[in-house]
């Protein structure tokens, strides 16, 4: 189980910053910029939420298998595929949160900050980001939890190779298959604990947010 836990943690170490940057960035783009194909991009980004993981995994497998670069790099059925498999279904959660977070920041505050003599970069860091912070963190917590718990997509593109791509959820599946319920339980409880902690964190973030606004 330690090996599966380690792989899951390694996936998170890479996926959490990716979720923050990619998901946060896409959300900002969708909330703040008007461009051709914005709605199409929005739909595309949201699609993984409603598609069954197996469908998502299948297409990912087909796409990655066709691109020489990924094939030659041994991307599929290896650790990078596990990272991608966990990232893809959790990205929409972050994008949605980030879009809502940035849309919720009053544009007038940013405009006021500009007239007070601050450049756009400073305005983003000191006004926009702090005001969007709570919703962004909520999104990050929920999407990270989703990434940690991914089963289907990871299984499709990375397989279930102990020590290489077997994350905690896949480990549980393996243990149940070989009727090792005690080990499965232990890993499952760990995930439940992580889930409770992150939900608690989200609740607390949201509650603090309301307090500050009142």
């Amino acid at each position, binding site marked *: 189980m330690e090996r599966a836990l380690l792989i899951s943690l390694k996936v998170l170490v890479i996926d959490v910053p990716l979720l923050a940057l990619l998901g946060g960035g896409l959300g900002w783009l969708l909330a703040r910029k008007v461009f051709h194909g914005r709605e199409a991009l929005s739909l595309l980004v949201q699609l993984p939420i409603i598609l069954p993981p197996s469908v998502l995994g299948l297409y990912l497998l087909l796409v990655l298998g066709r691109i020489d670069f990924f094939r030659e790099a041994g991307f599929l059925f290896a650790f990078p595929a596990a990272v991608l498999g966990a990232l893809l279904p959790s990205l929409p959660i972050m994008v949605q949160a980030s879009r809502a977070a940035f849309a919720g920041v009053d544009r*007038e505050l940013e405009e*006021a900050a500009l*007239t007070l003599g*601050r*450049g756009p970069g400073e305005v983003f860091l000191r006004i926009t980001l702090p005001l969007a912070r709570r919703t962004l963190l909520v999104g990050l917590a929920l999407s990270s939890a989703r990434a940690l718990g991914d089963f289907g997509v990871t299984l499709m593109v990375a397989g279930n190779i102990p020590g290489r791509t077997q994350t905690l959820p896949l480990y549980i599946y393996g243990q149940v298959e070989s009727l090792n319920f005690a080990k499965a339980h232990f890993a499952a409880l760990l995930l439940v604990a992580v889930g409770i902690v992150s939900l608690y964190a989200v609740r607390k973030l949201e509650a603090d947010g309301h307090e500050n606004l009142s």
Partner: protein
Amino acid sequence: MKTCLEAEIREKLGDFQLDVSFSLGREIGVLFGPSGSGKSLTLLNLAGLRSPAEGRIALAGRVVMDTRTRVWTPPQKRRMALLFQNLALFPHMTALENVLFGCPGGTTTERLAKARTWLARVRLEAFERRYPGQLSGGQRQRVAIARAMATDPEMLLLDEPFSSLDGPLRRNLRRELRGLQAETGIPILYVTHQVEDICALGDKVLFIEKGKLSGSLLVDEILEGPGRISFWRMMGWGNILEGEVKVGSKGRHCFSWGQGELTLKGAPRLGGAIAFVSPEKVRFIDPRLPVDAELADNVFTGKVDETLMEGGTLRMHLLTDRGPWQIEKRNGNVPHILLRPGGMVDFAVPPGSIELIYFKGEKEEISLGQGSAESHS
């Protein structure tokens, strides 16, 4: 007064067209107009938060925007502080941090000292650690003013920031703003749709309507002198009649215009004139009671065309066989039966309330006539 701001802005937004051009000295200008007339849009353009299709803005001799020569100074470099209607205080920063945000470069100690000075200037030094959510409406306004002034602006733009406050608070803030202007000498442009702001705050008033400036007046001219009539005309409020002063059939002086006659008080000079009757001086008459002898000749009957209630004031437009009349009354002075459109109302114009402005030669308004002196009685 030496010109400090020169602005020329033309912008098209859907069906709406903004086309204004004005200048302002080191004084308080009031941009007055109804909602949707383009007041706020003008301010946003001045501040650089919108870029107009055409125009030129120069502030203190520095061109900050010119579409012909492609000069564009971004808002953060214009040094025009803008006070938004809802103030736009940063909710995640304390009062001090908000003001500090506006302080330009320097060491942290210098900036902090400056922010504290401005907070003290608006008497909020004791509240520096409070967040905007923990301050009262008036205190928030003062933080916003301090924050704007801390940027060392070359001009201050205000978008009805006091409109949400009640009377006494608003009066205090207006006084503070005037003090601030006198102290710093920077031009201030104040946008409002409230008449009381004009005289209480401004040196100069610019009237804006449907995206165009319809006129401008010095406030001193509104308070006394012939500018008063132009003011009422631009406001679209007040009874203004063009005619002549003559001796009437009963041997009394009266003002005669195309549709009727009004008996005047005393014996003012004869000749062509404009008569102005302030709507609040017109009196309702109860038909069941005998009419005051002085008023008897000036009684009219009108049909209520429109009744507006604003604040504690009732404004009524009446149609009579002698043209339209306007009446304004404070609440409580009005029989409720009169309020309904379509109803018939008797009213009288007290002779002492008729202000006369004589024509000199070609319809030129010169000075207030004799009648006006009596109108203040």
